[in-house]
């Protein structure tokens, strides 16, 4: 087992068979990670992406329902409608690609409602992921005296590793509460693509898939004591640097995080 490089003590002075103070939590982390149930990365990623069509479908059903409530006029149509709603096999939602297209074509208001829903789903995930990572007893995490920068490092390193099996590629800050998290290969969207001629449309259609991660960042910050009102988090596309190998999705993702500290 490797010792973390940041530790001060002389490793040779410690007896070989006994675990040192630093090695103990490392060992515990190893045991914890081995005890975690393993799931398929692909299935998990698909579920995470399927959140977007789900939110669109929920929004559409809600619209249908509220418009039906307004239409309710006389007894006869009401019972007829109730009969229509009675299905032995309820009809399936439209396929996911259709729902994604609906979102692209939806008006501003509905679009924003769907994005809000996605962010709040991400927020819940982020809240709980922090809990899990605190529980994991990782020796690299010192939550006692964490400043904002180390919280952001925690997001870049541990949260991203837990959720996407990779770390954020680049973190930039002005040391006054503004951070940029660059991920040049944001994993959930790597397989996405449309026909060759519609790259602008493609970027617009993929954009909602970034909102879950926005929610996750906010959720993690909220669970570590930064209220979501004080945090602004936005996702946008950035060009990939030259030296990075070419992937199927042409753009990198940048998360702009702004925290107002009182």
């Amino acid at each position, binding site marked *: 087992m490797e010792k973390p490089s940041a530790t001060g003590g002389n490793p040779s002075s410690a007896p070989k068979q006994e675990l040192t103070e630093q090695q103990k939590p490392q060992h515990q982390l190893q045991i914890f990670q081995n005890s975690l149930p393993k799931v398929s990365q692909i299935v998990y*990623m698909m579920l995470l992406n399927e959140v977007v069509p789900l939110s669109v479908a929920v929004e559409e059903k809600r619209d249908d329902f509220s418009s039906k409530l307004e239409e309710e006029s006389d007894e006869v149509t009401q019972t007829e409608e109730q009969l229509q709603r009675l299905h032995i096999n309820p009809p399936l939602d439209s396929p996911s*690609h259709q729902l994604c297209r609906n979102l692209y074509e939806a008006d501003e208001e509905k679009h924003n409602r769907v994005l809000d829903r996605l962010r709040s789903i991400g927020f819940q995930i982020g809240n709980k992921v922090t809990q899990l990572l605190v529980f994991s007893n990782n020796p690299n995490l010192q939550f006692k005296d964490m400043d904002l920068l180390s919280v952001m490092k925690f997001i870049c390193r541990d949260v991203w590793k837990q959720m996407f099996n990779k770390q954020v590629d680049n973190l930039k800050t002005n040391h006054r509460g503004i951070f940029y998290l660059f991920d040049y290969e944001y994993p959930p969207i790597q*397989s996405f693509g449309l026909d060759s001629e519609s790259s602008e449309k493609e970027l617009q*259609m993929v954009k909602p898939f970034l909102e879950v991660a926005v929610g996750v960042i906010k959720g993690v910050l909220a669970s570590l004591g930064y209220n979501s009102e004080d945090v602004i988090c936005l996702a946008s596309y950035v060009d990939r640097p030259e030296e990075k190998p070419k992937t199927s999705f042409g753009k990198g993702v940048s998360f702009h995080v702004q925290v107002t500290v009182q």
Partner: protein
Amino acid sequence: MFLLVNFASLENTKCTFDEISRTKISLLMAIYSFWIFDKHCNCIFDREWTLLSNSSSGTINSKQNEETAKLLYGMIYSLRSVTQKLSKEGTNNEVRSISIGKFRIHTYCTASGLWFVLLSDYKQASYSHVLQYIHSHIYVKYVTRNLLSPYDFAENKNETRGQGFRKINNRNFISTLESFLAPMILQ
């Protein structure tokens, strides 16, 4: 034997893209066209190379190939049903390749009803690993896992039973497939 060893490592996905391509160049084989059919008897992708030794020539998803696609589908379909009848109870007897005077047809059918069909010359007996690779590493990656693309290319009842017209136009799928198959067009 040489081929077998190379493709065995391919299945572990340790083998990089370049290595597979180089293997193919060393064998000097030629392919003529590539087709995908879905479970609704529709041709959802076709690619025909007209000039040998030029990987960019030919047509993609062309209207002219519609009739050829139907004939090809019909031939494989009937041969499949013949072989199903000839096989003993309980064993599945799939058509792997059909050799005709001028060329050879290689087929790979999945349980989900997709048919991957490759027309080639006589230089190599089996392309089943190539077709399997196309299914698992290109089709699944860029069509199945892509939420922006449909997974069922017949959107309503009228487009089933060979009446569909939708094709795979996904840019990632086409470009990856092109670069994967390009070395095989060498004559």
